[in-house]
């Protein structure tokens, strides 16, 4: 088994999309992230796992500067996307967030129609000149969100009327509509039941053909199922980062082994 060649895993290792160097994050005086270095590949699903409070969400939210909205949060280090520093003064977080989409733990569709939910991003960013263009973007995004078939007959029904799993896929379609390059997901399935979870996981797998996906998850099983790369955080440190199959069959660090086999007491 020394030949750990993956099937169905088209990882392209020389294509780094996001690169974090010597990153530290503080909330007031407490340090939530300690000297994390990580390279996230394009067209890959990267999962962040680790015990509660280890800093997964914090690190994820650094990548689209959602942490800016928290007063006491301070970020140190370099975050490069496509080689450009996203914390550079010249970068407007609004613009960054159009490029780095995000999907949240609880499905949060706007209380508007399905169409408007998806059209909102492109509209504010002025991505469509005509109604026809907008229609096209909406359809394409809903297709990418694997929900087009379920909603195409009721585009003008409210998005909040969908089931939990459908709502989450709608939120993914909404995030995708602004043509981001990176999709961040913070425990996107923790509010869903197993069936909806499986559907969203399937969708995530499809999305990686077009996006760089980073997903935070509490469920090791989920990380195992959806990701090609896994990062294990512990107490703010990045303990291990590697190919998911490797992490789950032969992790290098004893803390990783302890965590994934259910031994950290």
């Amino acid at each position, binding site marked *: 088994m020394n030949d750990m060649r993956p099937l169905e895993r088209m990882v392209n290792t020389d294509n780094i999309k996001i690169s974090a160097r010597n990153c530290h994050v503080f909330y007031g005086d407490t340090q939530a992230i300690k000297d994390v270095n990580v390279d996230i590949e394009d067209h890959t699903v990267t999962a962040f796992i680790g015990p509660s409070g280890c800093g997964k969400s914090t690190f994820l939210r650094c990548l689209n500067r959602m942490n800016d909205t928290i007063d006491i949060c301070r970020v140190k280090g370099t975050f490069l996307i496509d080689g450009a520093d996203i914390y550079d003064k010249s970068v407007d977080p609004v613009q960054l967030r159009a490029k780095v989409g995000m999907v949240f733990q609880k499905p949060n569709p706007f209380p508007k129609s399905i169409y408007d939910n998806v059209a909102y991003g492109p509209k504010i960013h002025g991505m469509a000149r005509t109604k026809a263009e907008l229609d096209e973007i909406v359809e394409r995004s809903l297709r990418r969100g694997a929900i087009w078939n379920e909603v195409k007959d009721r585009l003008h029904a409210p998005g909040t009327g969908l089931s939990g799993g459908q709502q989450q896929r709608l939120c993914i379609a909404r995030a995708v509509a602004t043509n981001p390059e990176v999709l961040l997901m913070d425990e996107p399935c923790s509010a869903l039941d197993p069936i909806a979870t499986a559907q969203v996981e399937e969708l995530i797998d499809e999305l990686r053909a077009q996006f760089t996906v980073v997903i935070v998850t509490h469920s090791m099983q989920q990380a195992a*199922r959806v990701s090609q790369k896994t990062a294990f955080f512990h107490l703010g440190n990045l303990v291990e980062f590697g190919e*998911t*199959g490797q992490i789950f069959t032969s992790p290098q660090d004893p803390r990783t082994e302890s965590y994934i086999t259910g031994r950290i007491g």
Partner: protein
Amino acid sequence: METHMTQEPHIARVFDRDLEAVQAIIMKMGGLVEDAILGASEALTARDEELAAKVRKNDAQIDALEDQVNTEAARVLALRAPAAGDLRTVLTVMKISANLERIGDYAKNMGKRTGVLAQMPAVDGTDGSLRRMAKAVQLMLKDVLDAYISRDAELAEDVRQRDREVDQMYNAIFREYLTHMLEDPRNITPCMHLHFIAKNIERMGDHVTSIAEQVIYLVTGEFPDEDRPKEDSTSFAGVDGTP
């Protein structure tokens, strides 16, 4: 009990792809092993050293595929935590690949012995039985692989029953070789090798039977009740070659 196999795809289609991929390796192995059996028996009949060498060489590929099956199976177990039918699929795949690997080994061993036999005088009228036996086993293998693909427990059961014939053929051959050896001491060395070859083919049949049992387990969730048919009675064969 056919109901056990739900043919719907998984919601996570990537899981289906993983399962298919690992089963594809099995099919590939199966093909290679069939070829090996045929090749080995042909090489034996024709005392074709070149072909025998090829069979020996190809075994490395089968071994590599077995490794790959194990790796992928472990991976699927670690990443997908399969249950019920899926779990049985993975477990079965591992067992089947082990069986195929062993069959491959036996074919390789035939190839090795063919090389030796080529340099010895032929023992009359022996090769036909061996070829028939090899053919029977190869057909059994083909059928059991079909049974696996189509999740056909009946066909697998049929294969399982056919092993009896192979065993009977082996018994006949054992006695025949014993006779040859007693007749003419010059036959002793080649007959020893032929003997081993026959034993190899008989073992191949056993491994195919084992695959058939795996297929039955995969489809029904249970192993066949009766003991596996075992008609190799040569261990009890007396001086005269009869049990």
